[in-house]
């Protein structure tokens, strides 16, 4: 049982990690914490569904379509909604993402309010048994994908010039302009990437959870917890936080009480922040909020 709890915890944690990474990337590059990331998550899954059912596309085609749509949506949102606010107080930007989250949820509820749609697994097949541990092929895919994304971004931010530029632009946008960095373009792209990451996570997990307008909300809070645990803005932190949270949830549910599963994330947040206010891996950077 222990091994199974750990393994499923890791699989769950991987999904949290992809969600948290999407938010972390955006936070790193714009200092905005995106409260509508959960909706990107939801829209990604819906886009696949729509492409499949309305246009009759193949699964792979639909996924490409969904990712592309969400990338464009992210860019558009930055251009239309966020850019005009770039000089506004930080909380206005946070509220804008909140408003957006309501809007996207409202719209999708308007069309799909009563429906909860199933999505077939990306890869089917029988459960894989390794000793006492049972995993679905989909689970393995999820874990593998998030590993890939994590390393990709880690490399990008830590090793490439562009990564550094993005970080610089987020801390001192005026300074970045002063050295000739196209700050608006960078922001725009990063929003696109953030949305795409959200969609990817959504598509990965949707076969397990079904597709419905509220599917993003619960994920968001887990991602927050993961980010807090690892320290805002830290990529490895987000991943470590997400995996820890996934495993903790399972262990607490399995060994203490299933009533605690839903608040594990919150307990973790509170304990971590009281003991170490900057998260486990976070450097002490003051958020502008």
């Amino acid at each position, binding site marked *: *049982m222990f091994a*199974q*709890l750990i393994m*499923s*915890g890791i699989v*769950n944690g991987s*999904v949290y990690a992809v969600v948290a990474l999407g938010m972390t990337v955006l936070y790193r590059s714009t200092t905005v914490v995106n409260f509508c990331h959960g909706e990107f998550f939801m829209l990604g899954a819906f886009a696949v569904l729509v492409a499949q059912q309305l246009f009759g596309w193949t699964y792979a085609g639909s996924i490409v379509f969904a990712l592309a749509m969400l990338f464009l949506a992210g860019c558009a949102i930055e251009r239309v909604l966020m850019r005009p606010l770039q000089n506004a107080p930080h909380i206005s930007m946070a509220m804008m993402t909140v408003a957006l989250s309501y809007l996207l949820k409202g719209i999708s*509820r308007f069309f799909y*309010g*009563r429906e*909860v749609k*199933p999505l*077939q697994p990306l890869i089917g097949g029988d*459960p894989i048994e390794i000793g006492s541990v*049972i995993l*679905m092929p989909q689970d393995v895919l999820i874990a593998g994908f998030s590993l890939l994304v994590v390393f990709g971004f880690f490399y990008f931010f830590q090793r490439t010039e562009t990564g550094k530029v993005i970080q610089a632009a987020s801390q001192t946008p005026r300074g970045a302009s002063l050295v000739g960095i196209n700050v608006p373009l960078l922001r725009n792209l990063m929003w696109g990437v953030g949305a795409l990451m959200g969609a990817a996570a959504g598509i990965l*997990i949707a076969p*397990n*959870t*079904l597709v*419905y*307008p*509220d599917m993003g*909300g*619960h*994920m968001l809070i887990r991602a927050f917890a993961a980010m807090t645990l690892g320290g805002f803005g830290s990529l490895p932190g987000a991943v470590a936080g997400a995996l820890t949270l996934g495993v903790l*949830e*399972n*262990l*607490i*549910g*399995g060994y203490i*009480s*299933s*009533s605690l*599963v*839903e608040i594990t994330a919150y307990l973790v947040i509170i304990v971590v922040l009281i003991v170490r206010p900057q998260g486990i891996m976070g450097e002490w950077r003051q958020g502008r909020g």
Partner: protein
Amino acid sequence: ETGVTDTTIRIGMFGPLTGPTAIGSLPLLGAAAIYKDINDAGGINGRKIELSIEDDACDPNKTISATKKLISQDQVFMIHGGWCSGTVMAIKPELARNPQLPFMVLGAASAAISTPVTANIFHPIATTAAVTRTMLDFALSKPKTQRIAIVSHSDEWGKSHITPLLDLMKAKGLEPVESVWLERGSTDATSQLLKIRAAKPDVVLAILYPPELTLYLRDANKYGIKAPTVTTQGVSIEDMVKRVGNPAATKNLFVFYPLSATLDAPKFKKWVDVYRRYYPKEPVETLSFMGMTGALAIVEAIKRSGPQLTREKFMAELNTLRDFDPGIQSGSLTFTPEVHAGISAGKMIYWPVDHPEIIDSYPAAKSQ
């Protein structure tokens, strides 16, 4: 009388038209279809029914203001509404403050709504007490069933089932071998399932909404839990089979079934047609018919009250309703001044291969 003119009777309705539980708007539509059908057939005693429909989004506070609006702004004759137990519980004080106002529950099942009885609240569906009794009886009808595990939500709805269930079990000298919470919106049920698996139950009583039940069934299949799952009327079998998308995972699922026949049965066609006539685009599910008996009971009581319709007379007539059975619900409806929980029986349904079948006891000894 309030809400009544020479040609109309105004009835207020509310239900979750929007929000995460918007699926609960289906019973409202079913009831509304009955009213429209009656109107198209000429109305009752020369009066047509006018509906004031409010959205409660399954939110108790919204329901309170909706009720106040129906009562004092729209001046309705009576209210027929409530799919979420929490919303109906929330307006009980308001209803107590307006003892002359008749209230018919639309689909909320919590036993606490009608027990103890409130004079103006009528409950024409199988209450959670009735549902859990049926579920338990069904579970115990399987030979040698000893070990019962429970998985449930911890919200009001979940607890309104758990409480009577545990009481019933205790009365039979039983204890659940394992009892776990699965929260709404969960994306994983591993820890709960492993606990259940470790308890080696003969049967699992699942008090879950559709999304979580889906998750549960899929994971149960994955972890090789073979015990049958018995669940409430909160889900419909067709929907679950579709959602889970894996026949192996649903073949051992038994759902409390509030209706008299499967939706595709010829004898039920009449009701499906009524519903389709007025809501051709809406899904036809078990839920769609849960409000109909209440609506028909209202129509019946209004009819019996005669042309001089008053609330008082109307409630008196409701209280005399005995074995009222239009053929929708699995049992007949009886209201007495002492008992407003009008339906006390139900059946179980399952999906052996490619269509649903109604059964009374396990193993499937067919009842019809």
